[in-house]
């Protein structure tokens, strides 16, 4: 059992948990993820490790309420426990002093971008960060991101906060003006990562993305998470989750993410009925 020590509602939809997981915290690094299963009948879902505190023995995750499992997860409170957690999973980010880098975090993807930006900053990089969301309410961790970035750009689709733009607008401008940008990190919805890669392709900028495919065991055993990178099939759980974004087949990723859309609807409706519209 893994106890939730802290819960923070970053918005109506986005929740932060700090969870007691001593051994996972000890090994966690930027770019890793973990899998959790809330209860006996639950499904295994991968979530990103947004931060870790080795002294406290905790990991922090941020998730958005989407389907049944994340809605259920969002009803848990401080002091409650999660039945199963496995991690740290995936190959952690490769960090070195590249020079000048851009970190793009979209929506709930701001959370896993943070430890990567921090590690890049600590390694001596000049870090420019772009965080974006649909609307002001969904922007979080502005302070944390600012603390690890030399420059922070905020965008919202509706212009309610920061620039009224999508993340690719300032990214395109940055790449145009700074020929010395060595690397772009982008984490967010598949569609965002796809268009980030369209932008970086234009400027021939190296791009790393973190893929959020459907997983079951997340240890390489099942292949549910397969993605195509440079025409080759890869398992996001053990070969990734980070890949060279310009080689990723995002259309396939998005199609595979929709595989259970009907089952997700059924599960959600049933859950709403049972929990009284929560």
């Amino acid at each position: 059992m893994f106890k939730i020590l802290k819960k923070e509602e970053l918005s109506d939809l986005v929740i932060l948990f700090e969870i007691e997981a001593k051994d996972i915290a000890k090994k966690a690094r930027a770019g890793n993820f973990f899998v959790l299963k809330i209860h006996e009948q639950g499904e295994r879902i991968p979530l990103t490790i947004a931060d870790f505190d080795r002294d406290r023995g905790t990991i922090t995750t941020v998730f958005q309420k989407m389907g049944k499992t994340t809605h259920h997860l969002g009803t848990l409170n401080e002091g409650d426990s999660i039945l199963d957690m496995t991690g740290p999973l995936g190959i952690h980010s490769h960090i070195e002093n590249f020079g000048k880098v851009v970190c793009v975090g979209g929506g709930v993807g701001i959370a896993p971008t943070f430890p990567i930006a921090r590690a890049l900053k600590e390694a001596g990089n000049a870090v420019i960060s772009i965080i974006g969301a649909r609307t002001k309410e969904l922007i979080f961790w502005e302070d944390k991101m600012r603390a690890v970035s030399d420059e922070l750009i905020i965008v919202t689709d509706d212009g309610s906060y920061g620039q009224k733009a999508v993340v690719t607008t300032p990214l395109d401008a940055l790449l145009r003006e700074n020929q010395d940008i060595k690397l772009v990190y982008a984490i967010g919805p598949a569609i965002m990562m796809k268009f980030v890669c369209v932008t970086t392709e234009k400027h021939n900028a190296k791009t790393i993305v973190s893929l959020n495919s459907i997983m079951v065991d997340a240890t390489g055993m099942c292949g549910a998470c397969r993605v195509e990178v440079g025409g080759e099939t890869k398992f996001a759980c053990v070969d990734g989750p980070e890949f060279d974004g310009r080689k990723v087949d995002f259309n396939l990723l998005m199609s595979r993410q929709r595989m259970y859309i009907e089952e997700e609807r059924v599960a959600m409706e049933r859950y709403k009925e049972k929990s009284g519209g929560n």
Partner: protein
Amino acid sequence: MEEKRAGKKPENRVKMREQEPLARAKNFMEVPYGYTPEEAKKEASRCLSCLKPSCRGGCPVSIDIPSFIKLIKEGRFIEAAWKIKEDNAMPAVCGRVCPQEIQCESLCILGKKGKPVAIGNLERFVADYERDNAGMEVPEKPKSTGRKVAVIGSGPGGLSCAADLIKSGHQVTLFEALHKAGGVLVYGIPEFRLPKVIVEKEVDYIRRLGVDVIVNALIGKLFTVDELLTEQGYDACFIATGAGLPVFLGIPGENLNGIYSANEFLTRANLMKAYLFPEYDTPIKRGRNVAVFGGGNVAMDAARVALRLGAEKVCLIYRRSEAEMPARKAEIHHAHEEGIEFMLLTNPLRFIDDGKGNISAVECIKMELGEPDASGRRKPVPVKGSEFRIEIDVAIPAIGTRPNPLLTRHVPGLLLNKRGYIVADYETGMTSKPGVFAGGDIITGSATVILAMGAGRRAAKAINDYFRWKYWDTAKLQGSG
């Protein structure tokens, strides 16, 4: 004496009653019902109690078969179970999933004139009887040796090794990456062949023997093998991480929605209980027309699960003929009975899309058998111009696995072969790294439950020898990589 016996017409084997094929193809309940005590005694009475029994030699863990059968004849069922447990900690599992027909039963003298003694059925009976009537009593704890062993992987190899080591008085920790212990017994083998309640009881028994079972512990990530051997103070470790990563067909369209590796399909259905969705949260595509590719036990399991999930038609597509299928005869028979359609001498060429990212058909080609290949089996070659299409909405390649590098890539000094399997001595499980033993599918590639158990037992014995003599021999491993 022998002649006189051989001359007597042996009685027919007592058949184990089972669910009717058409009924069982729609539920996940176990297929055979098991023997009653009367049936067990009757079947046991067929055993000739040979002076020089050969059956025992056919058992990878050398169960004292004649002795346990004798105890059944006498109605001493619980003692019979204990007799088996001297050599095998999980008789309820082995009685169900061992390929007895090519092991113990193939050597039974009765088999020369009729059916051999149903050793597997009897093993299953006494194990079930003991569990239901005596609560699987735990033997007295041995004196502690002060040694600590880490067993990595809680499948059949790890469980049997842990059981033997704890009986030798060592402190044993069993690490499992998934949230439930049992390995292939819980994620792979379906409920109707091996009810999960039985696996849980067997794992619980191992726990009660004193083994510390830790789930959600992915060794290689959470702890490395070196950390176990140094910081955590383990004196030895046994790696039994199993078959690993699924192999796909390598044909176009393989990542369309609706195409599952057999590992994924079975894991969703068995471990995650997706057949009970939405009661359980894990979904699974319930195909109307399902194609399974392969001819092994895993292919049979996947096909029979698809049927139970409500498929109208399940095709088993195999590129050779039925005679070459590696699956157990009994499993092939069960699949036929339940209405699985065998499409033999057929090879898939590509999967076809419905325009929305889902699979809608598979294009295949007919094959014919040519000259024998390296495996000794006649090599299938395509018949020109024989391409055809089958409409399907779920496809399940079940063509094998390759080793998972998650653990092995983090163990310096551990010799792997070209294909990534751990190089280890067959008899002892000794690897190139002192203190590290390995066995089961991670050294041999996909095999059976009982072979992994045999490897676990041999490694336990070798670990005891290693503690006694501090002896490490890797000479035999040279050059095998």
